């Protein structure tokens, strides 16, 4: 099934000419034109709401029927818009295929994955069910799944996220399409898995001459594997060109902003403090947090022991007053469990967390309230972290009057000062979370955490749900605040770039243990442990790092 490597077609494979899309009165795509040549990998970059997914779904005819599409889309000189249902069905999966951001929800939960890969071949190539099954098994092997014959019989819920995406890819390439549209295919995956999936896509492109349109918010990923990149914003292409040119010599101001906002491009050194050997402010000693395994009645009858899961296993760390410390790890590494242990939401099985030398586990009453005032946290999900029924101002003011630091009226006026401090216009104070943007919500969350004037601020993945440009702004805000308020920051993230540009020291977590620690710059440039090296190698850095520091 290996297609010809160098096709003789000279014209573009996909030709999008002046396409606009509107839903009712909202235009989500404005006069977009671009081409994809056979065998090339084109990157489409943009933040949420830029229309990058819409254009690709439009090209596949997958937009909901409420969408009005105008313009022209040609695939190998065949006009696509206005095709009938049957013509579309013959084209999709056969000549052009698509993979999606969240592989878990895009697989049918009731069918074996082998069958799901076989179906397009039965449909398009007229194979028999058993022939298609055999080919599906071989495809699974091609996309790098071990024991493919056994895995083909699995159901989606039995596979990991990375394996599900490989299954999606296997189904997509089963009929040897000419074009693969990949819509954020690695966003939901851990970095090390992301690196492997991207490697697979590159291989497919090289070996089969498969043209790929790769949609991503991550310029680093695109710069790594695409020959050309186009940048979209508000439904328009603001710039397109060779990958090198876009990264190194962006023409459009927005492209420049996007490039500069990429994690690791800027160093946020404001408020970094030299520590002078005093006793550490926050100490974690031999901390072990265990979640009991589930055991139902059948297990009890069969005398099966529950298997407890140690989310944290013997973790030691010490943080000095005024320091900014990063905690890095992939999902399941225990980094959020650590945060929850520090704010006393997870009880340690053994070990202790000490603030100023005294353990926090036994605190109660007045002392506990004192701890609450000293240690605060900002959460990951901008919308989920605010009570949907309270306005921004009420949310920020509540801790002030509940802790008796002011009456309700003056708490509100303090809250509006805090609102100003996180650079939100006063008018937004009356809004409820769903009327705010993600970045604005996160600013309210920061203001709420700072309302009690804490010493220690824990930030748990606070920018992971945000666009890169918003992320850069939030980091800048946080850097200013830590300088002004002499905050001790614990910054938790999956993104080594962000952590190393924002933090002085880094702890790398894996499976509940610390695998490496040290100065942020050292860990990023010369990692010692194998796992850290793999982590660093999976990062997609933009060529020619422009290092720039903002000193306070």
């Amino acid at each position, binding site marked *: 099934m290996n297609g010809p490597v160098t096709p003789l077609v000279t014209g573009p494979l996909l030709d999008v000419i002046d396409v606009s899309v509107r839903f009712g009165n909202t235009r989500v795509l404005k006069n977009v034109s671009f081409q994809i040549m056979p065998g090339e990998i084109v990157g489409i970059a943009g933040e949420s709401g830029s229309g990058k997914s819409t254009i690709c779904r439009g090209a596949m005819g997958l937009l909901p029927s409420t969408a009005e599409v105008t313009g022209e889309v040609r695939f190998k000189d065949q006009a696509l818009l206005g095709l009938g*249902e049957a013509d579309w069905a013959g084209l*999709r999966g*056969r000549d052009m295929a*698509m993979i*999606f951001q969240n592989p878990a*929800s895009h697989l049918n939960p*009731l069918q074996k994955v082998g069958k799901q890969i076989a179906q*397009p071949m039965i449909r398009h190539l007229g194979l028999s069910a058993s022939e298609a099954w055999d080919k599906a098994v071989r495809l699974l092997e091609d996309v790098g799944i071990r024991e493919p014959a056994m895995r083909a019989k699995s159901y989606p819920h039995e596979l990991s996220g990375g394996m599900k995406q490989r299954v999606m890819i296997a189904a*997509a390439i089963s009929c040897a399409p000419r074009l693969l549209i990949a819509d954020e295919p690695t966003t939901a995956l851990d970095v090390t898995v992301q690196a492997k999936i991207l490697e697979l896509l590159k291989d497919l492109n090289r070996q089969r001459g498969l043209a790929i349109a790769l949609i991503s918010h991550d310029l680093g990923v695109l710069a790594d594997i695409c020959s050309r990149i186009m940048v979209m914003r508000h439904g328009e292409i603001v710039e397109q060109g060779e990958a090198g040119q876009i990264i190194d010599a962006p023409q459009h101001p927005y492209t420049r902003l996007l490039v500069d906002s990429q994690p690791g491009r800027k160093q946020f050194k404001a408020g970094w403090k030299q520590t002078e050997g005093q006793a550490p402010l926050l100490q974690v000693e031999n901390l072990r947090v265990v979640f009991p395994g589930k055991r139902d009645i*059948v297990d009890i009858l069969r005398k099966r022991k529950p298997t407890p899961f140690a989310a944290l296993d013997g973790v030691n760390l010490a943080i000095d007053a005024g320091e900014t410390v990063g905690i890095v790890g992939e999902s399941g590494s225990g980094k959020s469990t650590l945060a929850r242990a520090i704010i006393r939401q997870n009880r340690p099985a053994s070990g202790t967390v000490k603030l100023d030398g005294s353990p926090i586990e036994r605190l109660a009453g007045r002392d506990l309230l004192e701890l609450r005032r000293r240690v605060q946290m900002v959460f990951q999900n901008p919308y989920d972290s605010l009570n949907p029924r309270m306005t921004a101002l009420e949310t920020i003011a509540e801790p002030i009057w509940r802790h008796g630091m002011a009456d309700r009226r003056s708490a509100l006026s303090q809250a509006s000062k805090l609102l100003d401090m996180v650079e939100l216009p006063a008018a937004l104070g009356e809004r409820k979370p769903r009327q705010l943007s993600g970045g604005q919500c996160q600013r309210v969350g920061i203001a709420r955490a700072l309302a009690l004037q804490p010493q220690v601020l824990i930030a748990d993945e606070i920018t992971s749900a945000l666009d890169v440009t918003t992320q850069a702004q939030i980091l800048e805000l946080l850097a200013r605040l830590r300088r002004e308020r002499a905050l001790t920051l614990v910054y938790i993230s999956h993104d080594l770039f962000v952590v190393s540009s924002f933090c002085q020291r880094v702890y790398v977590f894996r499976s509940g243990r610390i695998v490496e620690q040290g100065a942020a710059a050292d860990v990023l440039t010369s990692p010692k442990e194998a796992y850290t090296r793999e982590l660093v190698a999976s990062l997609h850095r933009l060529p020619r790092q422009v290092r720039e520091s903002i000193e306070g």
Partner: protein
Amino acid sequence: MHTVLRRLIQLIFVLAGICIITFLLVHMVPGDPARVIAGDRASPETIEAIRQRFGLDQPLWQQFVTYAGNLFTGDIGQSMRYKRPVVALIGQYVWPTLFLTGYVICLAVPPSIALAIASARRPGSLADQLIRFIGIAGMAIPVFWLGIMMSRFFGVGLGWFPVSGYGKTFADHLHHLFLPALSTAIWMVPVLVQSLRAALIEKASADFVVAARAQGAGEREIFWCTVLPNAILPTLNLFGVLVAFLIGGTIIVETVYAVPGLGTLMVNSLLARDYQVVQGLTLMFAVTTVAVTFLVDLLSAAIDPRARV
């Protein structure tokens, strides 16, 4: 296997709980249980005899042990009114009810599926709005009133159907029970349609449907192979609940149409204060519901691999 075992053990606990509740039910009766069983006009001697016979002078837990022991031997009580074991009574009255239940399901399920599909094919269309409206409206109609109206119109007025009884042959049954089954079905269809419609619409916009479309599946194939199997699951779970409602519905409908079934027996026994029959019937209805729910669970496990872990 594990799931089935767990459900079986759960089942045993629920059954034990059901026994306790039905046992306590009769003991909630205000006043002397012996007098209650014997009836208002019984002589003191009869009451004393009943107290002896049913062990009502024993402590409560001993009475329960006796009750539970009797249940194991298949003795679920004795009717005061009919002077017969409750088991025998149920054996006599159960057939019209079973027939009616099956009849209702046959009348309700096919149109429900058809209407739900018609509605979900184009959500928001006129047909969909109409079906949705009827769906909500149908639940607001009192079944007994509908029964009376239909028996007046089709039975008495037009003379198409008999308005009471059960008949002798199978065709007779069909004829006699048509109106009762129809009145119950009219009330059941909306519930089924609403659930299935919601599930269909939800699954039709699911990500895996978009993925199937992107792989070139036709709309017909997508609907039958992807959307429908996924949408059936939640409705299947609802079906267990519906059987419980169906039992309640048949009680009323049987009373309206004087069908000699368990519902009529239940209401008559309640009015005649024949508590052991009420107790036995409650037990039986509960066991039936639990059994149906169990079967539904097994069936969803057969369809859904995620439920098999």
